[in-house]
């Protein structure tokens, strides 16, 4: 009780010490790594992605071997890489959506946001730091799981459909899967910063990704097809596919650019509202 101010910085040192963006990155990294939900969500992501990739490719190959695959074999035959990357990661991506939302909404539900905002009253840099740290984390884990899924699936389908990274578009599709997951996580983070409630934001993100964006594919005429093509995840997922699909309007990188643009727009709005709204 006697030493309340043991580390009182001297005025000289005080003036010299500058708080930079790296300090915000360090703080955001501490926040992300110090809660169990981060670890658990990423574990679920990896287990679901790898597990489903393995299970579904194995079941399909087994069906083929026993001659009971029927019409289902045409999908894997036409594009085995897309089959491998699309199965497990297609469901695993939901864990990334949840984590992206939680990274920001858990601050609101717990009240941590007030401590954060007191420490960083200019709130924009905080959101940028959060996005960078979370994005980097998802990128690393996402690439590991994407390559893991690919090699796992490739080993299973090898007897019927030999696939390799050296084939055209395959390396880009695998790396692209990690990139897609990264931007998807940031997209969820942006929605979380707008809605601020975990349940509402998770429902919104998953509803958009699984239902709404795909439903636009039912719109008639060519403008309907264009709207569909420019939906965030519809455009974004192109980079995870090694071959162009029939009627594809955007190239993989164009699609990825569209997805990035949507996400950036939502993050800018989220940052603006974070700055404007009472914390």
């Amino acid at each position, binding site marked *: 009780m006697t030493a*309340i101010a043991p580390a009182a910085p001297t005025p000289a040192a005080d003036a010299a010490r500058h708080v930079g963006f790296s*300090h915000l990155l360090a703080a955001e990294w501490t926040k992300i790594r110090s809660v169990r939900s981060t670890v658990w969500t990423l574990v679920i992501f990896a287990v679901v992605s790898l597990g489903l990739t393995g299970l579904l490719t194995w079941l399909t190959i087994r069906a083929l071997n026993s001659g009971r695959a029927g019409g289902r074999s045409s999908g894997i035959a036409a594009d085995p890489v897309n089959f491998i990357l699309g199965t497990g990661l297609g469901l695993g991506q939901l864990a990334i959506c949840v984590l992206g939302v939680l990274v920001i909404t858990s601050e609101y539900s717990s009240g941590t946001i007030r401590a*954060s905002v007191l420490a960083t009253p200019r709130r924009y840099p905080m959101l940028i730091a959060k996005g960078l740290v979370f994005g980097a984390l998802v990128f690393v884990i996402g690439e590991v799981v994407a390559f893991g899924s690919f090699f796992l699936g490739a080993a299973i389908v090898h007897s019927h459909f030999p696939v390799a990274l050296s084939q055209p578009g395959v390396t880009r599709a695998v790396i692209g899967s990690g990139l897609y997951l990264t931007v998807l996580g940031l997209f969820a983070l942006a929605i979380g910063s707008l809605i601020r409630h975990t349940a509402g934001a998770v429902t919104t993100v998953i509803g958009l990704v699984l239902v709404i964006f795909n439903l636009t594919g039912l719109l008639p005429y060519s403008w309907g097809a264009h709207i569909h093509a420019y939906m965030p995840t519809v455009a974004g997922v192109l980079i995870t596919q090694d071959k162009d699909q029939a009627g594809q309007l955007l190239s993989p990188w164009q699609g990825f650019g569209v997805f990035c643009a949507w996400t950036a727009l939502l993050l800018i709005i989220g940052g603006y509202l974070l700055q404007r709204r*009472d914390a």
Partner: protein
Amino acid sequence: MIEVRDLTKRYGDKVAVDHLSFSVEPGRVTGFLGPNGAGKSTTMRLILGLDRPHSGTATIDGKRYDQLPRPLEKVGALLEAKAMHTGRSAYNHLLFLAQSQGLPARRVDEVLALVGLTPVAHKRTGGYSLGMSQRVGIAAAMLGNPPALLLDEPVNGLDPEGILWVRNLMKQLAAEGRTIFVSSHLMNEMAVTADHLIVIGRGKLIADSPTQEFIERSSERSVLVRSPQADRLSELITTEGGVVKQETNGTQPAGLSVTGMEAPRIGELAAASGIVLHELTPRLASLEEAYMELTADSAEFGAAAQAGSGPAEGSGPAEGSRPAGAAPAGAGQPGPAQGEEIAP
């Protein structure tokens, strides 16, 4: 120094803070008092830049909070104790705050030791008691070793030991020359802690004065006199310029309450006329009573509103229901809740 100038905050139609102006000086504990809903927390949130005011300014050493480069080194704040992630340890909660200011991790250990949480620092805060959470909040406030501290109801939910600890800490920090601004709705707590009081009601300033002056100004001194010859004494006092009221305890007469005359003079009068005195007690209305009198009009969810079927007294309680000097409880005792007292 914290300065609030003409600060106004509305939530929809409701005015939470209404053209409020005051300043909080360093080197003393300034109590921030008001009934529930008076706007204390909102004012603190406005000072800290958490909420945006509709008009007016709140500055710390002349700067708005969001203009401070490393705010935690200028102002420490304790708002709600439980406002932290239940899954994160106290250490990590403080660590990210320290990192955001460029403070070394060593500082986290220091503030944890200061609040006595070192043994549980790496446990998740979800398992902490309210008292422990308050300590984490105080540790966070002390992290940047700031010259000013804002504490919103810091003793809420603490056990007596915890209350004493917070009280002593605030006094010690003020003695070091820091600015301590602490809100409470408990008058008696402030009476023993605060050197200066800022009282608000319905978002408006009611009083801004030293604690002692506040009590003296807002309450009337009286002397309780009991004598078997009460009638004669009463006459004598009245002729000498004093004001006498008969006090009753139920139906029993319980002595005379004298205002406008000091106890020694009453004793002299009695002695001169050979009147026997059984009791002669100078009384000062308690701080709680002074506070209730002041804020009775402005209580957001006050007694008048709760009276329900009772007569709609409106602004009554302040003037009519409590005759000066007729306080039922002795000095220093917390009076009964006003709602019970004004019941017909």
